[in-house]
């Protein structure tokens, strides 16, 4: 029995060089999985491969047991996957509310309910709902980005470095919200630079090196391993 979302033995890259060289990433519903690793290890690439933004030469991606390796990103959105890119992840010239609406484009009904839930999750967004997203602070913008991705009521939420460039306080808050999202039954997968904090909340962690799984296990387990701490967490 494979996990809810599973990328097995993925091999691929952009040009002739493979960035992913047989890595496997899995995440279960209701859990948080975190990918960490040094720069250039293929963390973001792995995420993109799972989302169909990169052609795989080998390996398969399955969602709830169904093989989705050949689907386009748009088709995966329709299947219940959602992705928050690292940069340019909001419509800067559009209001917060319009950003959320754009997230809900593919939903036929219940857009208003979902939006209300997202405003409950991120109360500050409700306050700023008529402001252009481009005028918000970095942390608020990340909330808009996550909110937009949540508008499709996804079963899988994927985040590429959601805490890049935000303050530690905002980061903790964002992680709390992400746990909330996971506890509501969503499978959350994220790539993180802030490895230590991210692994603390991870049900499952992957340490990627040169496109391969170097270590994997639950977050706290990885944090306990000395060589992981030494090599990737600075002691």
């Amino acid at each position: 029995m494979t996990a809810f979302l599973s990328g097995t033995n993925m091999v691929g890259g952009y040009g002739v060089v493979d960035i992913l060289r047989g890595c496997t990433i899995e995440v279960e519903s209701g859990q948080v999985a975190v990918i960490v690793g040094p720069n250039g290890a293929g963390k973001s690439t792995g995420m993109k491969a799972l989302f169909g933004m990169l052609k795989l030469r080998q390996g398969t991606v399955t969602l709830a047991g169904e093989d989705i390796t050949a689907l386009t990103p748009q088709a995966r959105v329709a299947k219940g996957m959602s992705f928050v890119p690292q940069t340019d992840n909001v419509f800067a010239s559009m209001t917060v509310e319009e950003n959320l609406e754009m997230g809900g484009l593919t939903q036929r009904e219940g857009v208003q309910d979902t939006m209300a839930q997202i405003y409950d999750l991120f109360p500050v967004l409700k306050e700023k709902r008529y402001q252009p997203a481009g005028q918000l602070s970095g942390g608020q913008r990340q909330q808009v980005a996550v909110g937009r991705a949540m508008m499709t009521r996804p079963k899988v939420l994927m985040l590429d470095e959601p805490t890049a460039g935000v303050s530690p306080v905002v980061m903790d808050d964002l992680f709390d919200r992400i746990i909330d999202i996971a506890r509501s039954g969503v499978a959350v997968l994220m790539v993180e630079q802030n490895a230590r904090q991210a692994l603390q909340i991870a049900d499952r962690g992957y340490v990627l090196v040169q496109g391969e799984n170097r270590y994997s296990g639950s977050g706290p387990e990885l944090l306990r391993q000395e060589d992981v701490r030494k090599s990737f967490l600075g002691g």
Partner: protein
Amino acid sequence: MENLANALVVLSNFVIIPALAYGSQLALGALGVTIIVAVLRFSNFAHGELMSFGAMSAVFAVWVLQWLGISIAPLSTALLALPVAIVMTVAIALLTDRFVYRFYRVRKADTVVLLIVSIGVMLAMAGIIRFAIGPDDRVFDDGVRFIISVADFKALTGLKEGLAIRTSQAITIVMAVLCVGFVFWLLKYTRIGKMMRAYSDNEDLALLSGVNPDQIVRWAWVLAATLAAIAGTLYGLDKSFKPIVFQQLLLPIFAAAIVGGLGSPVGAVAGGMIVAFSEIALTYSYKKVATYLLPEALQPDGMLQLLSTNYKYAVSFIILVAVLLVRPNGLFNGRPS
């Protein structure tokens, strides 16, 4: 007091009303240009010819209607012909997109390449238009010429100066207000409008959100071509239809779109007005206004004209240069350069 009123009337008659009408035409043109920049991300040099095509279709439709004896007198038959012109122009725009531009879009060609492609389209379309209708001047306004004529106005107000409002000017301004209002409503409140803005703002994210790019591009062409057909027909109605003029309009239209900020609809409208008012205000001779405002001793001998009307296109250029020097993104910040 009466002097002031007379001066104001002269100013309205020769500067404000013509500039409003001309500004409306430029605004509609620039709005079309800016929509294409926002969605397809290239400056469409064929937009002037699209306007020309719209006006030509209107002229043909007017001829057919006149031949059939259909008219909506006292209004111009051109208004009745407008829907035909719009349909024809939208059709030609969608056809060129399908057979010319799409190829480059699919390959994600550089914006400069698309610009050159649009130049090819412009040449071909200009040739077709001139081949079909000939290069000559054609007046096709058959409606009542004036809403208020100079004589009426003088009789009405008892002022020495008269104010004439031509029907075509009034139609132009009203149509422009309606069109601009409609486009803004569409962009702001409708699902398709929001999708267009999202696509223009952040293409990748829009695709991730399930926006269908083909649909957006189609809508962009429909909007731009509709505006072009209306702008072209109104310009032809207000002055006359002459194919070469639309090539010359390219500069003021682009100046308007850039002044406002390429990709910004509000900017396009504001830019159109700025260009039109500057052009007419700088090339108008203020001698007559001065005769009412200044005491006899101070009356100037000259024409009080800042620039000969021959140089009206230079005004667009000067505005363009000033904007590029000071605020290259335009007054209403479009996408960053």
